[in-house]
């Protein structure tokens, strides 16, 4: 994987992801044992977040530091004054000349691919537009593997905004690289999964079913992936209020769930995932967020050193 760009989860094979997960396991035990690593000593990562982010950015920076490397960060004032300032292409050229790899997040779709065409060093997509968030999908799949020992054969529910949510989309595409038992796509009809994703699932032979409520399928699930439904997606506020209630995951909504059900969420959450779930053993989302560091460590090591 040395020198590779990380633009979309489907650029990777199952074998590559499994190798990444094994590397992440090693990173995780080094972190647990408090071993100091120097694998990327002397390497510099540039983080260029043109859209706000806390977890993705900080976990990339932490991952780099944990490996003995360092990072430079595009200052927020540079980001906010970009309308009159430098264009993306010139900014990327600059970062490319200062760093060994670039992580970019941008509201514009295809920004990461464009950056990768300009930069000579590897570019990692930290989320672009409504489509891709490949490193989130890696973390999500890794969490399933840690929680249940496997990814294949399980029944998944992916809930929320499946149309515009890049984390959900990337997770669904990521699942298709494995052999899930069944995938329930649970969303209001306005936010249903896009056709290109469904076609991809069909091509890969993944069994899926679109469902309009959690209640009808919750008892079958091994994994429930929850994402936020944004108010801005609804022209009519009344419609949003209606939808919000029926796609909220709470202790009540999880009555009838299997005992080992793993609930994931890319975080941050607003109110789609109630706090009363936090104390249950279904709550894997904080662990999932914590895995952001070892998985990104593994990825950085693999693309920078092989």
């Amino acid at each position: 994987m040395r020198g590779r760009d990380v633009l979309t989860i489907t650029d990777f094979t199952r074998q590559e992801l499994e190798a990444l997960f094994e590397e992440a396991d090693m990173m995780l035990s080094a972190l647990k044992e408090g071993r100091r690593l120097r694998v990327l000593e002397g390497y510099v990562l540039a983080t260029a977040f043109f859209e706000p982010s806390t977890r993705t950015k900080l976990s990339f920076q932490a991952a780099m530091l944990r490996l003995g490397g360092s990072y430079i960060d595009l200052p927020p004032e540079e980001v906010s004054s970009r309308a009159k300032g430098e264009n993306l292409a010139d900014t990327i050229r600059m970062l490319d000349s200062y760093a060994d790899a670039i992580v970019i997040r941008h509201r514009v779709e295809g920004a990461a691919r464009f950056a990768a065409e300009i930069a000579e060093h590897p570019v990692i997509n930290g989320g672009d537009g409504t489509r891709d968030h490949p490193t989130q999908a890696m973390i999500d799949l890794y969490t399933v593997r840690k929680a249940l020992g496997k990814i294949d054969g399980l029944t998944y529910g992916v809930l929320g905004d499946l149309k515009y949510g890049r984390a959900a989309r990337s997770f669904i595409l990521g699942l298709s690289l494995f052999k899930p038992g069944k995938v329930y796509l649970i969303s209001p009809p306005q936010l249903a999964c896009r056709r290109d994703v469904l076609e991809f699932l069909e091509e890969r032979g993944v069994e899926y079913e679109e469902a309009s409520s959690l209640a009808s399928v919750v008892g079958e699930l091994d994994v429930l992936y929850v994402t936020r439904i944004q108010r801005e997606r609804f022209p009519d506020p009344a419609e949003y209020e209606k939808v919000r209630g029926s796609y909220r995951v709470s202790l009540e909504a999880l009555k009838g769930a299997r005992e080992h059900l793993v609930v994931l969420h890319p975080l941050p959450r607003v109110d789609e995932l109630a706090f009363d779930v936090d104390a249950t053993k279904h709550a894997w989302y904080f662990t999932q967020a914590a895995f952001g560091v070892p998985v990104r460590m593994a990825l950085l090591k693999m693309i920078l050193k092989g």
Partner: protein
Amino acid sequence: MESSRELRVSKIREGTVIDHIDAGRALHVLRILGLTGAEGLTIAVVMNVPSQKLGKKDIVKVEGVELREEQVSKIALIAPSATINIIRDYAVVEKVKVRVPPAVEGLLKCVNPNCVTNMPREPVRSRFKVVSVRPLKLVCEYCGAELNQDDVIKQLTGGGGSA
């Protein structure tokens, strides 16, 4: 000789005959060539004649014009079975079948306003992967947005779609 109606159109001395155009799209081809008739060139347009390959087809003959490469690429996108015959002294001296390339660069605009190829001030050209020729389906390599035949006709001819 596929049809008697075709025979009524006189031969041209120098120029181009575009044959096997999808029925109903001859006027789109003229628009791609930038021809309105006001140029004074001899132009023959034959529409909806029987064709073995296509069922029905259109033909365009233009006196005194040879096509530029970009025009040929555009014609391929609206008439993927077209053949282009270059005529000199009443004879066909060259005959090429248009080819829909696996990727189309720079000719079309992405329909997604939030696509990086639509950002002002960025040195980026649109690039589409051709997923299917009939029906035409192109996918933006940057954002995944799809273009269909109507979108392509609209963009290349600056007019309405359909047909």
